[in-house]
């Protein structure tokens, strides 16, 4: 845009300057792309990789790309590009029904009057797709779908309640995951950790223990800290996460320390007439996780429309105003912390029952990864969060075979930056006005709060 304005205003010199300015960005990006995909250097020859990326014939590929981009951005190029896209769109029209699934899901979520089928079609299709997907990938892919997508989907959905729904920045979220995992080890096996319960239970029966422990930790952390806001809350939760990980690492006499925890029994069901144990095969674990994620999605969907969910939205949008209109803000925030923590603790049970874990799994980086997944997908929108997990973790997996493993984080980082620049609210942003219930009585207060001023609400 700047280029056209400059050109129309006066002579050739400003136009050239504006053109140079418009070309700078593609040139820099092209150089960066050449270096990123180019050969590597090492400590002894730090600049070799850069030199061989820039002073090599392959730079021509990027030069052509840059020229194309710059050309497409000139007024003439823009016109022809518009023609091309229009033509492409016309040609793609027969494929339009394929795009109907997400569109239908979105329309169903927004318009209350839509038919039952339209509202259910999207989620149903997503479920079927998710159920069939592992059959199409290798065993390593299935393993990754369990560890990187399934478990992280649970974690991200839980964190979404805290960060997306209630708007509280939690940088120590993985601590609750750790608490869930260690609690499981405590109650299920006499040998996994030096410190163990006087009884042993099946990992499924460890769920209430782990969820209770994590929720309790959430309340203990949240209780005193929730009057802090923004960056300060972030730092306190970060500190909490670090403390939990360091304790797990250092208290070798209790947790097994850095060595990790071995031998938590795998999940098993033993009922009259039904015996099943989850073994090393990733597929059963995947379907278990799929079921759990589905349950969590449904429950949280109901919760968002419930009074508590609307109280969260009110707190997120303006805590002060929410308090004045009768929302019990502290209670709502504590509930968000506790619910988010319990989901994380629950995921911890599943993680622990996969034979082995050590404190490295609960690092600050893991917390940051979960937060990134939530924000990337679209915080406050559980479908977006799910999609974010699948896209980003899937990308990480897909890059595994193409570039050396440590290098894939270069691409990972670039995708995140580009995504945030293009869609700051995430892949699938939360629809505005979520504070209003999407179905039900037309006019209700944000919280079926006290009509008579409650003395407990405001002092």
């Amino acid at each position: 845009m700047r280029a056209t304005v400059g050109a129309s205003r006066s002579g050739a010199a400003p136009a050239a300057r504006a053109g140079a300015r418009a070309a700078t960005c593609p040139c820099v990006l092209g150089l960066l792309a050449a270096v990123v995909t180019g050969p590597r250097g090492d400590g002894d020859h730090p600049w070799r990789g850069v030199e061989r990326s820039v002073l090599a014939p392959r730079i021509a590929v990027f030069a052509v790309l840059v020229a194309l981009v710059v050309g497409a951005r000139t007024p003439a190029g823009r016109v022809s590009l518009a023609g091309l896209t229009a033509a492409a769109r016309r040609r793609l029209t027969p494929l339009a029904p394929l795009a109907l699934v997400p569109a239908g899901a979105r329309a169903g979520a927004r318009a209350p009057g839509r038919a039952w089928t339209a509202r259910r079609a999207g989620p149903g299709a997503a479920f079927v797709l998710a159920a069939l997907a592992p059959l199409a990938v290798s065993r390593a892919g299935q393993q990754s779908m369990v560890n990187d997508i399934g478990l992280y989907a649970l974690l991200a959905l839980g964190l979404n309640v805290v960060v997306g729904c209630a708007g509280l920045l939690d940088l120590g979220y993985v601590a609750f995951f750790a608490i869930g995992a260690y609690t499981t080890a405590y109650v299920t096996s006499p040998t996994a950790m030096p410190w163990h319960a006087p009884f042993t239970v099946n990992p499924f029966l460890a769920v209430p223990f782990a969820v209770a422990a994590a929720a309790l930790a959430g309340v203990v952390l949240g209780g005193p800290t929730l009057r802090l806001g923004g960056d300060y809350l972030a730092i306190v939760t970060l500190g909490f996460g670090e403390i939990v990980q360091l304790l797990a690492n250092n208290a070798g006499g209790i947790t097994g320390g850095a060595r990790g925890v071995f031998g938590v029994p795998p999940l098993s069901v033993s009922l009259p007439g039904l015996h099943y144990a989850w073994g090393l095969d990733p597929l059963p674990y995947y379907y278990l996780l799929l079921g759990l994620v589905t349950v969590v999605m449904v429950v949280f969907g109901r919760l968002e429309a419930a009074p508590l969910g609307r109280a969260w939205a009110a707190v997120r949008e303006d805590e002060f105003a929410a308090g004045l209109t009768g929302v019990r803000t502290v209670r709502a925030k504590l509930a968000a912390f506790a619910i988010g923590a319990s989901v994380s603790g629950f995921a911890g049970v599943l993680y622990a029952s996969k034979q082995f874990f050590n404190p490295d799994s609960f690092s600050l980086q893991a917390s940051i990864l979960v937060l990134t997944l939530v924000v990337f997908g679209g915080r406050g929108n559980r479908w977006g969060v799910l999609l974010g997990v699948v896209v980003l973790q899937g990308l990480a997996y897909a890059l595994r075979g193409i570039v050396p493993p440590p290098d894939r984080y270069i691409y990972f980082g670039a995708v995140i930056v580009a995504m945030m620049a293009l869609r700051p609210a995430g892949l699938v942003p939360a629809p505005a006005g979520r504070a209003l219930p999407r179905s039900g009585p037309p006019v209700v207060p944000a919280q079926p709060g006290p009509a008579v001023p409650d003395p407990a609400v405001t002092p």
Partner: protein
Amino acid sequence: MLGSFGGLFAARQLVPGGADGPTPAGLTAIALVVAGLAAGAAAGGASAFAVERAAYRPLRRRGAPPLAYLISAIGASLFAYNLAGKEFGRQSVPVPELFTDGPVLSVGSVAVSTQSALIIGVAAVMLLGVDRLVSSTRFGQAVRAVAQDAQTASLMGVDVEKIITGTFVLGGLLAGAGGFLYAMTFNASYTMGFVPGIKAFTAAVLGGIGNVRGAVLGGLLLGLLESYGGYLLDASYRDVIAFGVLVVILLARPAGILGARAVRAA
């Protein structure tokens, strides 16, 4: 507020910039240190500028929610330090020892090595410089105005974009110089910036965000807590103590030690 956040998170990936300083030999140690500091600061400043352009400015243009900045910064940091790892190798790069002579100062049983004295000296000079820059120059005045209310500041004739870029570059310069000093003691590696970045953020929050003196106090306090905590209990527990005290202090003073008024994000 966002500047300090961003500057600190940006600082994380800038620190490796200090690694390419001390390769030439033959000059005196002091000249090497000055060159290293300058190279580190230049690399830090340049990468801060790039990060601001790539990861922050597009978001500002679109009025992104605050969390998006954090995630964008995390993405930029992943990109930058892994690219550094690819280009400069993933092994830790040893930095030649410049000062092998004995302590420069001994008080009783306490000996201060030349290197420690140098680090303290450089840090003191930089701190005084930043303090003066923020409190008594036009640039500092503009920075504070933008921090308080960007819209009003722009109506008063402050070029907000320029000030934000300037703040980023300043943060990058300091972090780059700091990275060089850090590498002199602990060697350089591509992931060396992560922990100091988090600690810097912690120290700034501890002291009270948006307050240079608070940040210094927070940094000193955090360092002392770690050292003495590690000494009194067990070295492996020093971070536990540091973070534990941080939590307690923030509970008592929710806006940091020197943070006068609560920052209300709305």
